[in-house]
């Protein structure tokens, strides 16, 4: 039985009828065509699907779309403003914080949460903050550098 939901996504209001079992990540990807949010596993381990929901980073494969009803979602597509990359996106680019890019949107959204809570994180705090996001390409060093670079940029 489809249910009507209203969700703010990247500042735009969306109203749809969705099946109750539709995962939030499938809603974003297949109903709204926001395919920047990726699916990397089926046990909530990899973090590729991380989005910002009502002010907190969540794994969008662990939520139903109906649970987002009335809420506010920010995805990687919504980070840049007026064509200007977000400092975290710049950090990933400048520090070579990505290779295949598949984990990157989730990494960026987890980093977004970190820098919101802690604008000046230590290396250890960065590593801890992205511990729920798996990357198989980079060995994490350049991701850590990317987040540190973004933190410096935001302070400057």
């Amino acid at each position, binding site marked *: 039985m489809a249910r009507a939901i209203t969700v703010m996504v990247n500042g735009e209001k969306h109203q749809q009828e969705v099946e109750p079992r539709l995962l939030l990540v499938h809603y974003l*990807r297949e109903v709204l*065509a926001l395919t920047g949010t990726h699916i990397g596993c089926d046990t909530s381990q990899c973090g590729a699907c991380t989005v910002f929901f009502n002010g907190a980073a969540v794994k969008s494969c662990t939520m139903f779309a109906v649970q987002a009803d009335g809420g506010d979602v920010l995805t990687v597509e919504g980070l840049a403003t007026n064509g200007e990359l977000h400092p975290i996106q710049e950090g990933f680019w400048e520090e070579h914080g990505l290779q295949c890019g598949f984990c990157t949107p989730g990494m960026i959204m987890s980093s977004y949460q970190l820098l919101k809570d802690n604008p000046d994180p230590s290396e250890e705090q960065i590593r801890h903050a992205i*511990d729920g996001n798996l990357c*198989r390409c980079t060995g994490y060093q350049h991701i850590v550098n990317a987040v540190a670079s973004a933190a410096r940029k935001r302070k400057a």
Partner: protein
Amino acid sequence: MAISRMVGARIKRREDPRLITGAATYVDDIKLYDMQYMALLRSVHAHAKITRIDVSKALVAPGVVAVITGEEVRRAAAPLPTAGGVEGLKVPDHDSMPVDKVCHLGQPVAAVIARDRYAARDALDLIEVDYEPLPVVVDVEKAMEPGSPLVHEQFGSNIAYTWLVEGGDLEQAFKDAHVVVKQRMTNQRLIPNPMETRGVVAQYDRGPGNLTVWSSTQVPHILRSSLATILGLAENKVRVVAPEVGGGFGCKLNIYAEEVIAAVAAMRVGKPVKWVEERSESFLATTHGRDQVAYCEAAVAKDGTILGLRMKLIGDLGAFHQLFTPAVPTFSGLMSTGVYKIANLRSEVVGVFTNKTPVDAYRGAGRPEATYYVERIVDIVADELGLDPVDVRRRNFIPPGAFPYTTASGLTYDSGDYELALKRALEMAGYQKFKDEQVKAREAGRYVGIGVSTYTEICGIGPSAALPAAGWESGTVRVESSGKVTVLTGSSPHGQGQETSFAQMAADELGVPIDDIVVLHGDTAVVATGVGTFGSRNMAVGGAALMMCLVKVKDKATRLAAHMMEALPDDMVYSEGRLYVKGHADKAMTIQEVAAAAYRAVGLPPEMEPGMEATSFFEPSNFTFPFGTHIAMVEIDPETGDITIQRYIAVDDCGRPINPLLIDGQVQGGIAQGIGQALYEEAVYDDQGQLLSGSLLDYALPTAAMVPTYELDRTETPTPVNPMGAKGVGEAGTIGASAAVVNAAVDALSHLGVRHVDKPLKSEKLLRVIQ
């Protein structure tokens, strides 16, 4: 090379803007009109006869358009291919979807095609399959015993092949030995786990009879030829596109059942069909890596000189040969002697079937295994003789003056200076200081250790004659009439960054702005020919093809400009994008102007064709052999067995660097995978062939908090094999790392009399060893 401004610089990647904004298109992001979704029912047994399949309930489930079983796939498709590459190989038919028997957990036995992925998954539950379980063999050494259950009864044995390489006089070496050291070692089975699982979209256009397949693959051109053969289509009626690919590490270097089944399904239902592998499927259905047992014996002189090496390597192949399954363990055999001048060798490889997922290439494919064995043996030799492991390495190194050096296994190493990288790494590590402090630490009850790994490996794969499949690569460079430059490459990068590094090369050679260059790859309709991305071949082979094209284009531009300036080509200068007669730099034409003239095609020299384009194939004369030294420093908690890597130092030599930023990224990612094998990762099966570590919950991929900061440096020893002098760096980190970490751990426990511990060094295992 030309004046290098771009080449050698840490240029940030041109791929990244689309990837950091969510604008890239991976397979699962593709949505075609009326596209259907495929879900696969997979075998729950590791070895069983299929006695009945009833799909009638699934067929009438909501949204289902078709259900396909093995009979239909067998009618439509030939078995999956293997490149073989080993003499006397036993090759079982490998149906994409088995008809009457499954040989490992997770083989697809039925496919549902439905209007969306939820409907397809729902209908899987309605398919009834009756199995008659057969005896299962999981342990590779038990599989070799007489009376073992047989994976393929028709062969009468599970041994798929034996392969041998010999050099020198091994018997004499063992007679001359002061001491013989022996060690059994394992390289546990790993699961590659690129963050993007595999995925396929297949579309059949009935009108012209064209099949288009988008696949998350490292080898679009090989896939195109293979699909044509398997499905009985003309090769020029098949197009394969590798869109954005989310990592591969060797496990997407293959021709997979699902690629065939999705194509069969698309042709059957007359609509596009998408299949995207779930992670838990990926654990069962995508090839695994490593899985070897090695018996190693070294004959050693009193001073630590290794006189001879006898290796018996048992490769667990799993149940079938995928593309390079048989070849991978032979790479270990070929690389048995590592960086050492060991003249006497016997290396025997036995490839064995078991009821498990097929093993195939995984980052390093045979070389990490070989490096691990020889680097552990060197440490064991040092322990036996009371020598420092670094001294034993130095005593046995192939000296820099000995290159090109032919190994006892018949490989010819192109170039190397192993001492250079070793010395730098020891300096960075403060090796002697650590050794001094280790004494005090031990007195204080702390278990600290340092491990060295000096490796070389096979890159730039490779000469066609030395491979079971073609080893060339192709490229095209086209200066458009507007002066923009299009580079086509048969390589298929998926994270390695050749859209940047190839553009750097073209920018320097042609003297055009890098932003005017586009590098295209991965689509067989755009790039006519290619081999693909594996074995660190993008730069060393694909880059060399690109250089050949650039030389040809520059030559044509020079000849045309000379004609237009009424000068001789030999009197022309081509510098930074400008062409002029020597001494007349003020009267130059730009490459853009020359290209425009080439397309305008008025007043060309009589023998000159219009256009400004060149295509080349580079066939390498040899592999390349990068090398380096990795050093790990670890501490093991005597109470818990927990191991921590305190510092990690890597000095790698991949020849001449094109983009050091990308090289650092490759090395770091490689190290993390090597550490993963050393400490965390392991595919664990029970005796019925059920995969116990079958999800990311149970299989420990390293996270950011589980790996150290890497301290990197490089030396530069160019290769003569290609014009750039670049060797390749994709596997280096993985190859260096696992031996360095295990050597460090064993060093930390050596005062307890520990000489070897098999990977992965999980806490409970180390604690047992300590106790």
